[in-house]
């Protein structure tokens, strides 16, 4: 991917948290979800959930009926980035299909009848692309997608028409943020026809300096051309910007960065009450410390896992009492201290 080796680690995961491919499709012969009647939406659900998928998906998908899922379960899916907030909050008949150890998610009756998503950790864009495409093709063997000779695959919003494919990467860009370069990078990204969004997508904040970057143009280029451009030009460029900013910060302002990282570690090790947002920000700083070589006895994978576990719905899975906010703050602090090795049962002083 990139020639720089100083910060290079597994799948460029010092900067690339995960990648996502999202394909929008609609069934031919039905109005799009927003215009369809409930019985038509039910019919779309039936057709998709019962479609044979062939040899590539011998076990099919595990389907979650979203209208029967609890608020906490829906929130859990949002925290895992498997569904959009809009989809989680919708009241329409809808379902989520999961496969390949949750690397594949299929939303039925989102804004389009189908939103096929594949998510992989690190910069494994080819694998994500292949998985989404293989599901798309397997389904197309048995159902007809709305297609136009000139505009390609048709979608409810004209910004998705054509290939209907969006390639996205969740990037960790703390050094660009600390150095004040992030706004310049955002402008450059716009010139490259990229959308830069927050932690949970459109309209959300970049909590913990996590940014979702994705292509905005889906028409006029083949799927492979879009993939190649995103994989070989766009993301490597952003990775290089962040790595250069990290090197510059460490060369020019090492005490400041060390202070941020070690304070974050100390806070996480001693805090008795932790909010989800505070924990996310502090863990983000730890992640930065690890990938910059300042912290050694901790792995990025461990921090990634904690980043998920400290989110409210995930925490409530571990500790049912944590659903209540104040108890959640207590429970989150214990979880983090335990994971960082500074928690001992019966020793409240630690």
């Amino acid at each position: 991917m990139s020639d720089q080796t100083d910060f290079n680690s597994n799948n460029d995961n010092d900067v690339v948290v995960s990648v996502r491919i999202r394909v929008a499709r609609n069934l031919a012969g039905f109005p799009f979800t927003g215009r369809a009647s409930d019985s038509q939406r039910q019919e779309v659900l039936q057709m998709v959930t019962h479609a044979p998928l062939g040899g590539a998906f011998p076990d099919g998908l595990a389907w979650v009926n979203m209208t029967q899922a609890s608020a906490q379960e829906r929130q859990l899916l949002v925290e895992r980035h498997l569904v959009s907030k809009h989809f989680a909050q919708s009241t329409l008949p809808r379902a989520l299909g999961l496969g390949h150890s949750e690397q594949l998610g299929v939303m039925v009756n989102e804004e389009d009848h189908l939103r096929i998503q594949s998510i992989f950790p690190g910069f494994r864009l080819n694998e994500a692309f292949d998985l989404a495409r293989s599901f798309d093709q397997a389904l197309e063997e048995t159902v007809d997608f709305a297609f136009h000779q000139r505009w390609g695959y048709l979608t409810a919003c004209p910004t998705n028409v054509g290939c209907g494919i969006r390639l996205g990467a969740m990037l960790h860009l703390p050094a660009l943020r600390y150095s004040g370069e992030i706004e310049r990078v955002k402008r450059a990204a716009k010139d490259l026809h990229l959308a830069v969004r927050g932690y949970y997508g459109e309209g959300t904040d970049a909590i913990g300096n996590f940014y979702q970057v994705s292509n905005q143009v889906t028409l006029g280029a083949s799927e492979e051309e879009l993939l190649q451009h995103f994989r070989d030009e766009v993301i490597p460029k952003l990775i290089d910007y962040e790595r250069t900013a990290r090197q510059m910060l460490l060369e020019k302002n090492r005490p400041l960065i060390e202070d941020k990282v070690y304070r974050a570690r100390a806070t996480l090790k001693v805090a008795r009450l932790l909010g989800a947002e505070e924990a996310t920000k502090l863990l983000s700083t730890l992640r930065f410390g690890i990938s910059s070589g300042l912290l050694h006895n901790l792995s990025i994978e461990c921090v990634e896992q904690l980043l998920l576990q400290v989110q409210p719905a995930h925490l409530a899975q571990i500790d049912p009492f944590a659903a209540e906010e104040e108890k959640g703050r207590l429970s989150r602090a214990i979880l983090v201290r335990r994971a960082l090795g500074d928690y001992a049962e019966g020793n409240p002083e630690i």
Partner: protein
Amino acid sequence: MVHEVVIQNGNKMELHLCAEHAAAKGYILPTVPVTQILKQFAATGKSLKAQKAAARCCEACGLTFAEFRQTGRFGCATCYDSFMPSVAAIIERAQSGAVSHRGRTPKRIEGQADRAAVRRQLIKEIESAVAAEQYERAASLQGRLHQMGAEKKPPTEPTT
């Protein structure tokens, strides 16, 4: 950035604008959200012709163009044909000037694609663009027409 070449009375004039100045001069930049593009469309729609356009509705799902402008979402596949030629202008703006699909075609219609109809439509739009002195757009459409001529039908997969 906006680069435009204007040829007027045989004189060629080049215009180079940064994003801010281009926006100030009323150019719609490629990354502008579709809803904003549609609002600009609405702002110009004060003529009788534009009012008629807003009242047009899709023959299949009944969505009016005014409703589309409000939400930025089509109601069904037929809307794409019902609201031509406005659709072409909106898509091209939202998609950074791209004028047609170049990606995969569903297996079921491979080889049946009515490429001649798409070519005829592109030629018609090139003529309109030239008449309106939109030379950059005309060149983009011309480029796509050439590409279509050069594109070969993808080989069909062997059946087992």
